[in-house]
């Protein structure tokens, strides 16, 4: 639908505050807004969560079904992620089939999770070559005030981290309408999470508001996991038409590696509900 035009004066205010290393809401350039989690927002889901960072809020639910495996991986379950950028959440979103922004969002978060090895796909096999668990992670955006990538990524991890398998009746080949107490099989130590940096003016910042996001030259989403105390990258996506010079890339990687060290324990606590 309509693209929101940010007045030039407002852009100048944002940029000049950034020059001082400040944001209009008082944050430093590498601060996240407050993170609020509400679990079990939907009792029919295998797990569900609302994640709020600042005013951005998404709902995320895990559903599972039994399906035939892909022929090239007969002993592995399947994973699919969707995101709905519903007009409820922003005047810039349209109704109908997912557009490119929703598709990109879901695919970037999907890759970060899939490539990390967090989901134990072999553990999702019921009968090799015949039956495997299919895991759906569906995200619905309630309110967009920027940084949907990180909010969606965190919501997906929390939902996966608390999902329980439904009861599967193998003889009758049907799912009972109840959940077991068996956890969704995960390789917990392989978890990686997505942090997205934005180039606004001549500064690199994280967790942008909608306004900051809209005036960014580019964004870079980086999924980070832990490899014996070292940060390991499991997915990358550069978004928007701006280009990254080598100096910026090096500084981004150094910056986010530092930020990762403080954020990863926080993310782990949220995912494992500690």
């Amino acid at each position, binding site marked *: 639908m309509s693209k929101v035009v940010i007045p030039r004066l407002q852009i100048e205010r944002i940029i000049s505050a950034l020059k001082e290393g400040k944001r209009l809401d008082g944050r430093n350039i590498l601060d996240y807004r407050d993170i609020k989690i509400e679990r079990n*927002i*939907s*009792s*029919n*889901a*295998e797990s*569900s969560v609302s994640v709020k960072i600042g*005013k951005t*809020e998404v*709902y995320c*639910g*895990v*559903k599972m*079904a039994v399906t035939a495996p892909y022929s090239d991986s007969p002993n592995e379950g399947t994973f699919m992620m*969707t995101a*709905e950028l*519903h*007009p*409820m*959440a*922003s*005047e810039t979103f349209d*109704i*109908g*089939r*997912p557009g490119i922004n929703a598709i990109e969002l879901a695919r970037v978060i999907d890759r970060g999770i899939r490539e990390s090895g967090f989901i134990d796909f072999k553990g999702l096999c019921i009968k090799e070559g015949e039956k495997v668990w299919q895991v*759906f992670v*569906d995200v*619905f955006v*309630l*309110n*967009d*005030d920027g940084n949907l990538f990180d909010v969606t990524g965190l919501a997906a991890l929390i939902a996966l981290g608390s999902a329980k398998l439904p009861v599967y009746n193998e003889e009758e080949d049907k*799912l009972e*309408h109840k959940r077991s107490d068996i956890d969704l099989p995960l390789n917990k130590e392989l978890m990686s999470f997505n942090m997205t940096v934005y180039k606004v003016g001549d500064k690199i910042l994280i967790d942008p508001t909608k306004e900051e996001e809209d005036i960014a030259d580019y964004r870079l989403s980086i999924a980070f996991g832990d490899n014996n105390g070292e940060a390991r990258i499991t997915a990358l996506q550069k978004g928007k038409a701006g280009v990254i010079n080598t100096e910026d890339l090096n500084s981004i990687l150094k910056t986010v590696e530092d930020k990762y060290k403080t954020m990863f324990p926080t993310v782990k606590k949220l995912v494992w509900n500690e």
Partner: protein
Amino acid sequence: MVESLYKIRIDGRQFDELRPIKTKVGIIPSADGSAMFETGGTRAIAAVRGPRTLHPQHMQDSKTGVLRVSYGMMPFSVWDRIRPGPSRRSEEISKVCEWALSSVLDLSAFPNSVVDVFIQIPQADAGTRVAGLNAAALALADAGLPMREMISAIAVGKCDKTLIVDVDKAEEDFHEGEGPTDIPVAITSRTKNVSLLQLDGKISVKELAEVIEMAKLACDKILEAQMNALKERNGGTDDE
């Protein structure tokens, strides 16, 4: 009279008893109005955007604003996952909800504009369209749009020969005797007119008249919950 096979409600409620209601107004910061309405295991959220200029231009009405309603269920809201996006069912429900809300909304002050109402169901245990309407009416009031009256809605049901209000999923699946009948009804708050009416099942004419009376009584209770939610939003002042 032949006795009904549905004697005691599965969750122990009286036949005319509603599930516990929870409401909250103002849940989506970027919307012009928003609300949550929960009854038992069914929760609906609604957001209002507008009035804003309607595009394309040929859809505009130079005499009045236009209401558009979109209803949908989140993929994880039910046991069997729903594919995201519109379906035949959601399109039809959107339309009947649009008619129901149009009957009380006065958009004559906003020619050539559109008001969008988005209803979403994060968690479903039957009665989602009526919960959605209750949330939508609250969201429209929250948006400060001129309404001639409020709307409250309820699903009345029949399990075999027993009439019940606020049907849940287990009751919707009652297949003994005459089976289940589902009758979503919306009632306007002051004139007590019917602004939404659908039926799925089997019922006598006499029973249907009874259904409407039960719906009116139930909607009085829902209206009370709605008005309390709005008062809370306005910090205790009542300005219907």
